[in-house]
């Protein structure tokens, strides 16, 4: 007799690069990374991308829904903008070698925020116990047992 939905699995899904779709998780990742000079569009007006993004010379180069001001960023970097396009906050960074490193840190923070959110949902759904560990290489693992 086939087991159908009762078979037990060892399986995985992996997301290499998460898209920044949730503003609250993104804001949390930014503040956790130490960015305090944040300017965001008024609630409900995000899609207009009306917050000015300035380059290192102070010139307005674009508009965004969320902007990390240059004072929080490496010297000469300018602002870091997040433009809301099709429901995702797309980073707008200068062509600077430091940009990828900076974004990597934000992506990791966003992933950790998202992982904590998913684990909490699973804990509630299955009424399980949650355990969080951080490996030497910085990998964060959250186990939900039930």
């Amino acid at each position, binding site marked *: *007799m086939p*087991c*159908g*939905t*009762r*078979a*037990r*699995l*060892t*399986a*995985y*899904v*992996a*997301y*290499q*690069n*998460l*898209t920044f*779709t949730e503003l609250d998780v993104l804001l949390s990742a930014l503040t956790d990374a130490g960015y305090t000079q944040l300017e965001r569009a008024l609630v409900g007006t995000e899609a207009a991308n009306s917050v000015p993004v300035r380059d290192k010379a102070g010139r307005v180069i674009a508009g965004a829904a969320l902007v990390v001001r240059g004072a929080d960023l490496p010297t000469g970097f300018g602002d870091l903008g997040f433009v809301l396009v099709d429901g995702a906050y797309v980073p707008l960074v200068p062509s600077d070698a430091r940009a990828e490193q900076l974004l*990597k840190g934000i*992506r*990791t923070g*966003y*992933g*950790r925020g*998202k*992982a904590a959110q*998913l*684990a909490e*949902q*699973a804990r509630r759904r*299955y009424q*399980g116990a949650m355990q969080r560990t951080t490996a030497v*290489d*910085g*990998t*964060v*693992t*959250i*186990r*939900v*047992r*039930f």
Partner: protein
Amino acid sequence: MAELIISVSPEGELVVRSEGLTRGQWEQATADLRAVLGEPTRQAVEAEQHLHHIHVESHLQVRGGGS
């Protein structure tokens, strides 16, 4: 005992792993993930343990009584 293991690498890769979830629970979990995160970059079922059911049939023989 089943486990849902969620990990995030220093590069920001998020992996959600099932250890012993039923196929039904895993399908629900991955459907929820797709709704929130979209299509995963990679996915695989590495092992599937089937449950074997034992059916016990009992036969009752009714005999005519009388003492």
